[in-house]
């Protein structure tokens, strides 16, 4: 759940009641049905714009907040290879944020407005980044599994209907494959290393297991649905489907290293569906609403960056230049 497409009750209600110009709506919907993309200056339903901004903005926030747990170990990365890879990887995440904010800007919300909504708590980011990176092994697990989960989500979203978002995701997915590779490399070195290395890896897996199950959002039976978002190709797969795809791709890659997940019920059924113990969805809600171990620090650090950098941006501003929405 990088950019969440789970609707609140009110949103779901409004989605079904907002009246749009029927000719334009029909043209818009048939364009999407034909598999064509929507571009920024096209007519689009108010709710389409709103939900896209919400989703892309959350995705962008997730990238730049996600840089913080991993940044925790930049100065401590143990050798040249790991250090350069980690700095480049975290840099990419900031770059992803930049690309995604830009895509959201084409829909009419400025980067500054989005930053402000992040800092005020009005706008969310992925829950997974509210957990700490306690040891170096967390960097391996984040790089491999959190990025792995993100890739499942992003690859699916790149088939969506909004042109600028798809373009950004195409580039992002390319860079993510480097993240995944270096994360896997790191995991494998730990898993095939000393007792100590295996122990910190196992400990990290134990702690990240639940947040990873939470990553794709609540089970389908618990979340508000919108046929419209599916029809408009804003949401392209259900939470459960994405979660299943993730487990299918990555659980075996951990098991083959003789590392366990802390869940005796984790297994793949004959119908291809993964089964797992209830990952405590109350905790998910608690964390998303600010009760996680690192929510306060993440926001405080972002706030610091924005405030400490304000004088720089102000000094660069040219008051005679009027901001205009970017083209693509």
């Amino acid at each position, binding site marked *: 759940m990088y950019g969440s497409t789970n609707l609140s009750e009110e949103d779901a209600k409004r989605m079904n009641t907002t009246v749009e110009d029927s000719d334009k709506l029909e043209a818009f919907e048939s364009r999407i049905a034909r598999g064509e993309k929507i*571009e920024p*200056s*096209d*007519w689009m339903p108010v709710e389409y714009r709103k939900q896209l901004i919400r989703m892309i903005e959350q995705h962008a926030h997730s990238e730049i907040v996600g840089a*913080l747990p991993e*940044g*925790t170990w*930049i*100065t*401590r990365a143990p050798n040249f290879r790991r250090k350069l890879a980690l700095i480049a990887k975290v*840099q990419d995440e900031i*770059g992803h944020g*930049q*690309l995604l904010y*830009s895509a959201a*800007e084409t829909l009419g919300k*400025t*980067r*500054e407005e989005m*930053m*402000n909504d992040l*800092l005020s708590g009005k706008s969310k980011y992925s829950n997974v980044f509210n957990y*700490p*990176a*306690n040891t170096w092994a967390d960097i391996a697990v984040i790089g491999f599994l959190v990025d792995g989960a993100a890739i499942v989500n992003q690859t699916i979203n790149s088939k969506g209907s909004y042109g600028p978002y798809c373009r*950004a995701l195409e580039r992002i997915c390319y*860079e993510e494959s480097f993240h995944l590779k270096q994360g896997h490399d790191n995991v494998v070195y730990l898993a095939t290393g000393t007792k100590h290395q295996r122990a910190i890896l196992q400990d990290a897996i134990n702690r990240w297991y639940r947040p990873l199950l939470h990553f794709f959002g609540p089970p389908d039976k618990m979340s508000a649905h919108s046929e419209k978002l599916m029809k408009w190709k804003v949401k392209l797969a259900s939470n459960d489907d994405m979660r299943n795809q993730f487990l299918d791709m990555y659980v075996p890659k951990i098991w083959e290293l003789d590392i366990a997940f802390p869940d005796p019920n984790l297994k793949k059924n004959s119908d291809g569906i993964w089964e797992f113990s209830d990952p405590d969805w109350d905790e998910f809600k608690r964390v998303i609403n600010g009760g996680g171990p690192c929510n306060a*620090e993440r926001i*405080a*650090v972002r*706030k*610091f960056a*924005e*405030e*400490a950098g*304000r004088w720089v*941006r*102000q000094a*660069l*501003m*040219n008051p005679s*230049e*009027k*901001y*205009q*929405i*970017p*083209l*693509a």
Partner: protein
Amino acid sequence: MSSLDPRVNRLDFKKLADGNTHTNSHLITWEVFHQEKRGKQVVHVGIVHASTPEMALILAKEQYARRGKTTNLWVAKTSDVYTFNTEDEDIFETTPEKTFRDPAFYKVRDRIEKFQNKNKVAL
């Protein structure tokens, strides 16, 4: 605040005054164009926020040219780039039908052969 991140522990949080981030410090955007190799087209790749063309170029370099090959980057202020309205996309509609512009449209082999057969042209 005590953080697991030594970098964060070095930040001086006390120095920040008001906790207010509404600052109106939003820089304008520049459209960025990328040329991979000499002889290739220069292609639009995205935007950066910056104040001047020099700064836009400097910043675009690390966002749009940090991997692979690059020969040059161009930037133009977003407000200096003009486009058609997407509603006017129909002006391009019949263009693909205008096959008389395409080399493949011109096929005379059949005609030549017919002529040769008819007139028994020796080769």
